[in-house]
């Protein structure tokens, strides 16, 4: 039985990774799950310098999901390279570093710094709805996405994965722009921009006013976008958005995702990733699926 999948030439022992920002660099979940079992660990977004993030409250619960406006707090690439990469390097799993920035130069700084690090893939976050500059600005305009993808691709030593925003009219247009500019793979979806008002206080529930909605509530939207993109471009896709269990992960794969990231589910169940990996194996066994790759995009 083969559960190995390949993202831009990087082989993952199974299709399951984590969604950036929901798993730190793995240290905190090391207590719950054996990181060696994961196909890859995707880190929290890292910038060229430390970012303080947004004021609190940064999260709120929503019906069947949550919203966050962390604002990409991160310790900066120096600390990250010294502390997080060596930690992950000890594990028998692939390393996907999520990169964020406010300008093209910021992104390039980080990508260049990571060039000689033992990192397998770079996931470029151009879709964070919670920072004013950069972030989503690049992710909602195909031309801007094309340009930044091209610039990053020219500098990156590792394959790059552009991470797309769902807050667009036509996700395939964005996917095609990233493909045309040389992206090696795509991640989708980032969070959907939402808002919650606390009617008792007559105030926003999250200090940033708007925040990104994630969790199972958005799963059907993510599946639709993965399906559309899989049928519009040739790039491998890391599918994410509300994956809570084996069924959700298989849905993503059948829609066209080569790998699947588990995000918000970790907060509800810190064992979610390994339970899904086990569940996929059981499904394959029970249904006589010899190779997980035969399931990718099998529903047309």
């Amino acid at each position, binding site marked *: 039985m083969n559960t190995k999948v390949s993202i831009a030439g990087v082989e993952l022992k199974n299709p399951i990774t984590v969604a950036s920002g929901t798993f730190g660099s793995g240290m905190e979940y090391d207590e719950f799950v054996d990181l060696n079992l994961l196909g890859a660990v995707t880190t929290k977004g890292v910038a060229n310098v430390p970012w303080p993030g947004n004021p609190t409250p940064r999260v709120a619960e929503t019906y069947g999901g949550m919203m966050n406006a962390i604002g990409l707090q991160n310790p900066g690439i120096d600390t990250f390279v010294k502390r997080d990469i060596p930690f992950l390097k000890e594990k028998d799993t692939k390393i996907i570093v999520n990169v964020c920035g406010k300008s093209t130069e910021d992104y390039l700084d980080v990508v260049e710094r990571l060039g000689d690090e033992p990192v397998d893939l770079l996931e470029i976050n151009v879709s964070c709805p919670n920072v004013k500059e950069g972030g989503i600005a690049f992710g909602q305009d195909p031309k801007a996405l094309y340009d930044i993808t091209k610039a990053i691709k020219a500098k990156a030593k590792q394959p790059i994965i552009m991470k797309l925003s769902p807050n667009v009219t036509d996700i395939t247009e964005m996917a095609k722009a990233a493909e045309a500019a040389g992206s090696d793979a795509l991640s989708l979806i980032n969070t959907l921009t939402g808002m919650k008002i606390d009617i008792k206080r007559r105030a926003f529930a999250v200090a940033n006013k708007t925040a990104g909605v994630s969790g*199972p509530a958005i799963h059907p939207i993510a599946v639709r976008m993965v399906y559309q993109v899989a049928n519009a471009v040739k790039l491998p896709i890391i599918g994410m958005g509300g994956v809570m269990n084996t069924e959700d992960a298989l849905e993503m794969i059948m829609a066209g995702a080569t790998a699947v990231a588990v995000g918000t589910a970790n907060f509800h169940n810190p064992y979610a990733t390994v339970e899904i990996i086990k569940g996929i194996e059981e499904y394959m066994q029970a249904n006589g699926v010899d190779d997980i790759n035969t399931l990718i995009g099998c529903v047309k």
Partner: protein
Amino acid sequence: MGKIKMEAKIIRQDEIATDIYSMVIQAPEIASQAVPGQFIDLYSADGSKLLPRPISLCEIDRAAGTLRIVYRIAGKGTKEFSMLTSDHTITILGPLGNGFTKKDKKAILIGGGIGIPPMLQLAKELTCEKSIVLGFRDEEFLSEEFEPYGTVYKSSDNGTIGVKGTVMDAIREYGIEGTEIYACGPTPMLRAIQSYALEHGIEAQLSLEERMACGVGACLACVCKSKEIDDHSQVKNKRVCKDGPVFYAEEVEL
């Protein structure tokens, strides 16, 4: 053993004041490691509510393998918990956070409102001389249970219980003295204690609250402002769930 997520049997639940519930659960794996000031995450059984609810440990009975929590109905999650009875189980994650550091100094324990419960286990475990200051809105709860462990002083918003005013009014009114403060309660109370402690050069451990998601230090939802650049974040942010909830008064900005 470390943090675990488990289904805990509910042993008993009582409403001890208006909308304030005391729940005892069987969780030996957590009780054996837990220390006062730590908290657990409680999960709703309803799939529409995915985020855990952090609640502090009020008592830890390591021999019996039980934990006690005391909480106020604040919204949908705590409402749901309040309706559980001893036939039910509840899913929990813990122990979480750092807890109080027990110092062998003359202690002042201060609890305000729903910040009172976490002081109980601490009161039990601290062997030094203790003054215990409890601040209520207008309804008393749990204070009797503190009596065996130290001198109990009280305050209330309307003066019906102890001194009229805040815990700080009680401290001044009764001339309470000590060299280590342990406190839990609403932010304005903690802020007052912080400046009192810094002014008087008394060490103070403050238990903070912030909206959380992961509860284990991964998501960076629950940060508070720290005075120095934090080692983990490289910015002036500390995670209440992991670096706290207990911080020294001089560490944080409230």
